[in-house]
């Protein structure tokens, strides 16, 4: 039987919920509105893994985030996987579903690594068709996230901001703005994060991600293994000015600290959000 949950949506600041923190969350019931699940960690059809999520859902709004759907891929969509995601989303009455821009499979082989798309008109048209197809199957709009990129294709003709803005309009999807990834792309590829932020249609930005990166000999990796860095906090302030009060998630995936440390990061994000909101309310 489907459990019945309170229908509150995700809002304010949430955290990425990882396996290692589930028991602590159930025991401590931290004061948060919502949490986000990585689809690949939680695609259970039953048993304790699903039942723990049901318990958590009684106290928190949940969202789902994935990177394996290969929305930019040229192979047919993995509709079996998509149906399983849809079933989980319905079962937990999640507020929304997000996926990353990119591809992860070709010729029937899945890498489970998000690979970058060239920012071309061909890739844009292909991606938009696939987003529409996925949204039709899921019966809801998707949020699409900007990826961390370590390389550029020589034949790209669009900036990241232009690509994402056109994608959102043409496929009628919403946007998840990952500020850590924007900063990484600025550092690695010289694409100004501010320029990308201002190119995005503010009305379609539904969620913001904050996390830490790893500096590997001067090249930044989206490792999510450290606190949010100062440059990303600055981008957060700018994003709030541009997009207003947007649900914001703090992620930490590798070298996972105790839950309390993650909650401190969430508290910092909440304080910054309040500061920007107050300032905007007082502005003439």
């Amino acid at each position, binding site marked *: 039987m489907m459990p019945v949950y309170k229908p509150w949506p995700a809002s304010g600041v949430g955290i990425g919920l990882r396996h290692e923190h589930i028991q602590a969350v159930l025991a401590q019931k931290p004061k948060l509105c919502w949490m986000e699940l990585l689809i690949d960690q939680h695609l259970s*059809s*039953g048993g304790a893994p699903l039942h723990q999520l049901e318990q958590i859902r009684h106290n928190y709004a949940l969202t789902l985030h994935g990177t394996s*759907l290969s929305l930019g891929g040229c192979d047919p969509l*993995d509709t079996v996987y998509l149906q399983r995601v849809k079933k989980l989303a319905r079962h937990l009455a999640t507020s929304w579903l997000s996926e990353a821009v990119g591809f992860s499979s*070709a010729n029937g082989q899945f*890498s489970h690594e998000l690979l970058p798309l060239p920012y071309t008109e061909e890739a844009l048209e292909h991606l938009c068709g696939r987003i529409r197809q996925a949204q039709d199957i899921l019966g809801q709009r998707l949020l699409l996230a900007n990826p961390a990129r*370590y390389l550029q294709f020589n034949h790209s003709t669009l900036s990241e901001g232009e690509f994402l803005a056109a994608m959102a309009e043409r496929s009628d999807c919403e946007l998840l703005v990952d500020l850590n990834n924007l900063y990484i792309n600025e550092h690695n590829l010289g694409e100004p994060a501010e320029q990308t932020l201002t190119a995005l249609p503010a009305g379609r930005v539904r969620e913001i991600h904050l996390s830490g990166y790893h500096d590997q000999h001067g090249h930044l990796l989206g490792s999510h293994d450290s606190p949010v860095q100062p440059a990303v906090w600055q981008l957060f302030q700018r994003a709030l000015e541009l997009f207003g009060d947007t649900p914001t998630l703090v992620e930490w995936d590798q070298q996972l600290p105790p839950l309390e440390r993650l909650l401190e990061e969430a508290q910092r994000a909440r304080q910054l959000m309040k500061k920007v909101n107050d300032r905007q309310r007082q502005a003439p």
Partner: protein
Amino acid sequence: MNLSRLQTLFIEALQGETPAELKTQIHSRQLSAEQCIELHRHNSRQTHEQALAEMFPVTEQLVGDEFFHQVAGEYDHSFPAETADLSHFGDRFPILLLKLTARHRELDKLRFLPELARLEWLLHYAETAADDRPFDFTTLRAVDKDDQDRVTFKVSHALNVMFSDYPVLSIWRAHQQRQPDALSLEGGSEWLCIYRQQDRPAIDVIPPTVATLLGEMMQGHPLGQLAEHFANLERHLPAMVRQGWLSGFYLADQAA
């Protein structure tokens, strides 16, 4: 280069050498094209190895990190993932171990590994399988006497049966208790039933008769046929329902 060609080359590059045609298409501020690809290659392999380590923790403990890393790499190469669902990725890992133990005589001491890995895979499966509905005794009692031979039991989604020539359950248990030194290949030749009990995966050693009975039930044999093959059905069935091994029934000529 069109999108489809680019993606084919990229995935090829993750599996082995980076095609020159791809290298000429990419650049980065500080890294060479090959270094860029290597970052993605490393991430993909790490994700797959981590998934295997979570599904096969005892196998990993037994062979050690370095060997497990090598085997995971070979698995990634020989059995590429065929679905976006990472939880299915390990399904053919026991087959690879079977090939490796048959091919390499130095692995003779670990000849039980494929069966141990099969046990771990079935435990992983049992943990996350779909929930069963509660057994409907009321409807079962109401089945007309003339229809009883057509009663066909549904086996729990989480349940699987395996036979092992080796004492893999003892080996698995020793590693749960962090007593790997207790490893012994004495015993074995046993049937195991892997299922879910009170939300957790469980393993029972079962008699060959019960294993065969479960096998026939999984093939959809109705009660009338089972009664011809098995004495003491009336003793086995209530126990199977109590254990949660049977989750329901249908009449043979009706859709399941």
